[in-house]
């Protein structure tokens, strides 16, 4: 990430913190008061005020030092690398989603094999063996030894 992109991110994170703190503050404002001690909304409101101030300081600092809102330097961002992280996140999310339908063993084997290939591991046979053996090991360890029922689907 270039310095400009980092500054832009700092500015927008500051703004996001202010928005989040306002949403939470309004929600906490509606909560009932307590005659003694603090009510359920008081402490979150205190935290929201702190977060708002910090978000404001962060955004203002960028505005003052950069003399305006810095733009994201897209040329300095390695899109291929960013895409890799996004694909891995999407694959993990898909793994989570499919595990509920297909079940732990099959989805884990496919996820492991697919991720190893995606990472660039060359030996497909070795990857397949590791995927199957590791999945079975984890499945048996958790189900038989730890007595944890791992998600099952229509296949297993």
């Amino acid at each position, binding site marked *: 990430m270039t310095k400009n992109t980092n500054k832009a991110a700092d500015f927008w994170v500051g703004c996001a913190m202010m928005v989040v*703190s306002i949403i939470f503050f309004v929600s906490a404002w509606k909560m009932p008061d307590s005659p*003694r001690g*603090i009510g359920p909304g008081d402490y979150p409101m205190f935290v929201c005020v702190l977060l708002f101030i910090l978000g404001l300081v962060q955004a203002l600092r960028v505005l003052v030092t950069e003399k305006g809102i810095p733009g994201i330097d897209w040329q300095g961002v390695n899109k291929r690398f960013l895409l*890799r*992280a996004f694909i891995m996140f999407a694959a993990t999310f898909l793994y*989570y989603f499919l595990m509920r339908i297909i079940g732990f063993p099959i989805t884990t084997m496919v996820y492991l094999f697919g991720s190893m290939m995606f990472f660039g591991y060359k030996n497909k046979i070795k990857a397949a063996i590791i995927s199957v053996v590791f999945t079975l090991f*984890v499945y048996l360890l958790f189900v038989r030894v730890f007595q944890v029922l791992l998600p099952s689907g229509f296949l297993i």
Partner: protein
Amino acid sequence: MLPELLNGLANVFHPMTFLLMVFGTIVGVVIGALPGLSGSTGIILLLPLVYQLDAATAIVMLCGLFCGSMYGGSIAAVLLNTPGTPSAAATMLDGYPLCQQGLAGKALGVSATSSFLGGLISSICLILIAPQLAKIALSFHAADYFALSLFGLTIMASTDKNIVKGLISGVFGLLISTVGIDAVAGLDRFTFGNYQLMRGFQLLSVLIGVFALSEVFVIVQKGGEREGTSQQQKVGRVLPSWVDFKGFALAAIVGAVIGVFIGIIPGTGGSISCFLAYNVAKKLSKHPEKFGHGALEGVAAPEASNNGTTGGALIPMLTLGVPGDVVTSVMLGALILIGVRPGPMLFVENPDIVYMIFAGMLIVQFIMLAAGLVCAKFSPKILKIHQTILMPIIAVLCIVGAYSNANNMFDVLIAILFGLLGFGMKKFGYPGAPLVLGLILGPIAEENLNRALVISDNNWSVFITSPISCIFLLLSAASIIYAIYTNIRDGRKEMAEKTA
């Protein structure tokens, strides 16, 4: 104290406990040796196993992992010229030149021996200091606990290079700790109609996301490539000779003492102490010119100091419930998950657990020495483990770990989302430790704020009139002011360098 300690030693030597300590230490060495993974990731990966054990056994196993990972970091530092953990950054300075001279085995042997010395001295300090500090902490009232929580959070946030980013992370952690059923009034807060959020954000899911899954995404983004290549396939003789030992013993002892004191200060850790110890050892050395070119003292001092921080960091964590560094903040989370709440009451209610930790820390050092010397022999093989295989396996273990907390798929979803958040935080320089600490300390702060105000009949001056609370609040303010000052000073220095 001695009978309790002997009882702790007897428990530690229970075959199963001892075996798990050995297991934890070896896992720690291996995890620490792999660049990108640290002790905190190791603790998270072992959590499903931790759930199955009794509290004391689980803790001593985690202590083994903590100490093992500190030593393990030096393996990559010596062989790859890249630190396995941030705490081993200073070890590279002389470790890698030794490796280039064909003395990798010697460097790893010095590292293991110094780590042992550092760990042993810090364990003795832990045993001597912690019970005394706990006695003082027993006199704390609600207002003091509230101030202590603020102190813990501010000190952790202010150690970051950018104080505002550290504080944003910590306060965001405090905010998400308020999600769920309110402990005082029983009202649901910020659930936005989602019944799953009534339980709040589960600590384990957040830990897994911020510290482990985010690391997988970061390494994927880098292409799964490991920095540096091993220079040696065989490391040679590992055990240092008596002459060598006499040469680096003083540096190791000095490093250990520095490590213990740095470790006690909340929010610091091995990454700071290792450079400090390195510089002090260089000044004390008879041959300072050898530093940077393969001096054994240059390996001994940082390694003794980073292992010295282990016992030091456990002191505030066990006595006050405020972690000393990132790994102890994850360890604190792990202890809470298994039903152990560190703090002064732990010394009153569960002295057996406390003394087993003390005994465990002592014995772990001997196990670490043996494991370290053996693992050093196999270290080129450890470093050959492909990240392309390791990262998907870690991702699966994270998912299973998040699920096994309460057999709930929603916790898995939270872990993945916090993994994405942690990835973003890492990319843009927001530290993860204050966020997790905010999540842990948030409910403690709220509960004690409420209790202090109820007892004092809504008199806010109670936080100033109580001397302990007042001291913690002043220390919090001082830590923030000092961090702002250093931020401004560094900014000006940077500007001056740019214009020059």
